[in-house]
């Protein structure tokens, strides 16, 4: 699927909703909630990821007074990610670089290939993708790498401008070149 609405600048907004196997909802939730306590997020293995989340949708909300009930018939795992570039190569990276966690997570879902890996898992995620209606990105032109570089440079510059006030012009120029010249 390739709706233009998923794209803002060079950033892509991906979303997949996959049905959780009945009876495995708690195990999946426990696994996902436990990720934080087991070190860095597995999503850190995907260097193009800006921000991402997993959550389990118990059902669609029922608005008060309207009784507009619309049961899903089961719980769904929702995964969304805001990342750089195209979806195809991103999902490829996801199943390759985050293989263990991806398998552990999506094996709890109905229709997930067994083993939950490689091209088959990628195709599964593709098939369950839900296109965005409208995606907003505050800095959609900037990749994760670019954001991190810019933040790092900002931090160094903030430190520099305070120090540099006490320097004589020649010394300041030297220090500036030393700090930023090769960067």
């Amino acid at each position, binding site marked *: 699927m390739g709706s233009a609405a998923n794209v803002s600048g060079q950033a892509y907004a991906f979303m997949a909703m996959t049905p959780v196997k009945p009876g495995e909802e708690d195990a999946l939730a426990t696994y996902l*909630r436990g990720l934080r306590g087991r*070190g860095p997020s597995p999503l850190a293995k995907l260097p193009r990821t800006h921000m991402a*989340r997993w959550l389990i949708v118990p059902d669609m909300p029922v608005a008060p007074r309207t009784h507009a009930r619309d049961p899903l018939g089961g719980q769904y795992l929702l995964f969304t990610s805001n990342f750089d570039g195209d979806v195809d190569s991103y999902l490829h990276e996801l199943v390759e670089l985050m293989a263990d966690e991806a398998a552990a997570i999506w094996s709890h879902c109905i*229709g997930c290939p067994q083993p939950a890996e490689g091209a088959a898992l990628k195709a599964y995620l593709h098939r369950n993708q839900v296109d965005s209606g*409208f*995606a907003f990105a505050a800095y959609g032109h900037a990749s994760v790498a670019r954001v991190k570089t810019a*933040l790092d440079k*900002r931090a160094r510059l903030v430190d520099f401008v305070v120090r540099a006030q006490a320097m004589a012009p020649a010394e300041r120029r030297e220090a500036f070149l030393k700090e930023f010249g090769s960067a």
Partner: protein
Amino acid sequence: MSAHTAPAGPVTATGTDARNVDGQAIAITVFSTVKWWGRLFLPLLFFFTARIPKLTGTLAKLSFIHFARWTIVKKLPYNGEPQVKQKLRYAHMYFESNFNGGWEEYIDAFSHILTRGMTAFWGSSYGFPKPLPTAPFKSYIQVNEIEADHYYSAYPEATSTMIQRALVLDEKLAPLKRDAERMDPDAFAAAYRAFLCDVQHCL
């Protein structure tokens, strides 16, 4: 770089559950059920909002959102047994935001500053109270909000504003870096001063 071990920077991500937070970043996730006319209206709204930058100008100026999205869910792909083959009667709108600051202050800003935009985006949802007063609106969001099971930001120490300013700063630093090499100290002093005046709101 991930900072799941220690809090990144000051505590500002307040008013929500711990699992919705990664450093400075907060996740908000809300589904709402769309009335029949929303099926027709929302795609048009999305179409024009995406193409007329002015419409998202205030959102951008508020500058506390990294990424946000609105998605209409009308049907879900079928993956075979034992998935219940459910034909949805309604369209459902999925909203997510990645923002920084306090949850309460975020919703307040939406209600007070983006009053018309909020009504445009949620007016076709069942149960949506007007954006103001804020208390019924907040409880509407709270009732419908789903807590993340795992939330991740690649740069948890940074806020959206900080990133946007850092990107501007980086661009403006480049020419000074390039020219500094062939400047004498006095020429550099003048160029450096001009640079500081120019970027003082990015530091």
